[in-house]
């Protein structure tokens, strides 16, 4: 142990130490924030911070491939999926605390700790005498990204190509589970809508909402030069704001807004 520490002290450069002292607290803060946040979304975002810091660690430790995977796949993709799942389930959803099997939680925790202890102990025992080769030697032949490429495209070619079957299955599965196909002809698709619009009386876009300096939302109608409301700019599915009287209106007072309860929360008119 002390030998390894001395060895490490020889190797660690000041830059690496600096990166460690910057990234370490950030990673730790992210982890603590994740546990302490009451809001599940905030927890997930804290976790993103931790994962990003870990990605930074990998880069610092000369494992650029691992760093890229950590940031692109874990932080970029898995965490986004995580967030989406939280949003799907609802942010406030909490587990039912009714146990269907009596004592299963306690048993699961005890067995989990036991298993972790067993495997952890065995691994610690098995690796205690192992001398590390060092980065210089393991990265000798063109760095570890090139080394991964060499293995991936020769020895593990089959495993690599087989991954495409997994990806196809995942795409098909996501479509099956989440995409409701509409009976063809039951509602116009993007193409049909475009064609209908070009053939219709108004191929150009409708007048935009009058959001300038009046509010951020589509609920504010556009005004024509004479101060009257441009009817084309009225959004469907929601109650529009009253346009201010143009002569007396001060830019600062805006009418209270009421939203039609028929409007969906994500803005899709029903």
């Amino acid at each position: 142990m002390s030998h390894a520490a001395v060895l490490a002290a020889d190797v660690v450069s000041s830059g690496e130490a600096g990166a460690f002292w910057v990234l370490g607290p950030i990673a730790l803060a992210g982890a603590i924030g994740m546990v302490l946040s009451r809001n599940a979304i905030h927890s997930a975002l804290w976790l993103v911070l931790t994962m990003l810091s870990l990605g930074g660690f990998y880069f610092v430790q000369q494992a650029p491939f691992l760093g890229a995977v950590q940031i692109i796949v874990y932080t970029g993709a898995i965490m986004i999926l995580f967030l989406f799942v939280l949003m799907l389930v609802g942010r406030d959803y909490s587990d039912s605390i009714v146990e269907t099997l009596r004592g299963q939680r306690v048993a699961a925790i005890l067995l989990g700790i036991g298993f972790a202890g067993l495997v952890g102990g065995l691994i610690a025992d098995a690796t205690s005498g192992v001398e590390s080769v060092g980065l210089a030697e393991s990265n000798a032949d063109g760095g570890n990204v090139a080394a991964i490429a060499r293995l991936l495209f020769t020895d593990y070619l089959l495993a690599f190509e087989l991954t495409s079957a997994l990806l196809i299955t995942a795409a098909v599965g996501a479509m099956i589970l989440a995409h409701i196909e509409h009976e063809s002809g039951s509602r116009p698709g993007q193409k049909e809508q475009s064609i209908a619009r070009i053939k219709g009386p108004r191929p150009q876009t409708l007048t935009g909402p009058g959001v300038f300096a009046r509010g951020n939302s589509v609920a504010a109608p556009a005004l024509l030069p004479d101060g009257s409301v441009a009817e084309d700019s009225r959004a469907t599915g929601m109650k529009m704001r009253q346009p201010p009287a143009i002569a007396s209106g001060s830019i600062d007072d805006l009418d209270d807004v009421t939203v039609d309860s028929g409007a969906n929360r994500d803005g899709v008119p029903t």
Partner: protein
Amino acid sequence: MLNPYIPIVGLFALAAAFALFSVAAAPYIGPRRYNKAKVDAYECGIEPVDQPLGGARFPVKYYLTAMLFIIFDIEIIFLYPWAVANDSLGLFGLIEMVLFIGTVFIAYAYVWRRGGLEWD
């Protein structure tokens, strides 16, 4: 001795300083005329509403988008080592990669033709 990373550190410092300066200086040098519209939360043009905790559930089609993103994200990961080692891999590496991407493209064709990319 000039470490080759020092310019990068300098660039980072410059970028950070610029960002900090912009944020810090804005309140002092910009006009401050607020109205209700300016302090509104911006929700992409949607009427801002309070979302009650627990009531806000996303439609499942977002999940489809996220899942498709992950699939092609993972594909990209394999491109990285291939690009780095392209010189030593040569033609057969290209063939292997084309085979892989071609196969994953089947998934893309399926998703596209069945309307998974349409937002209706």
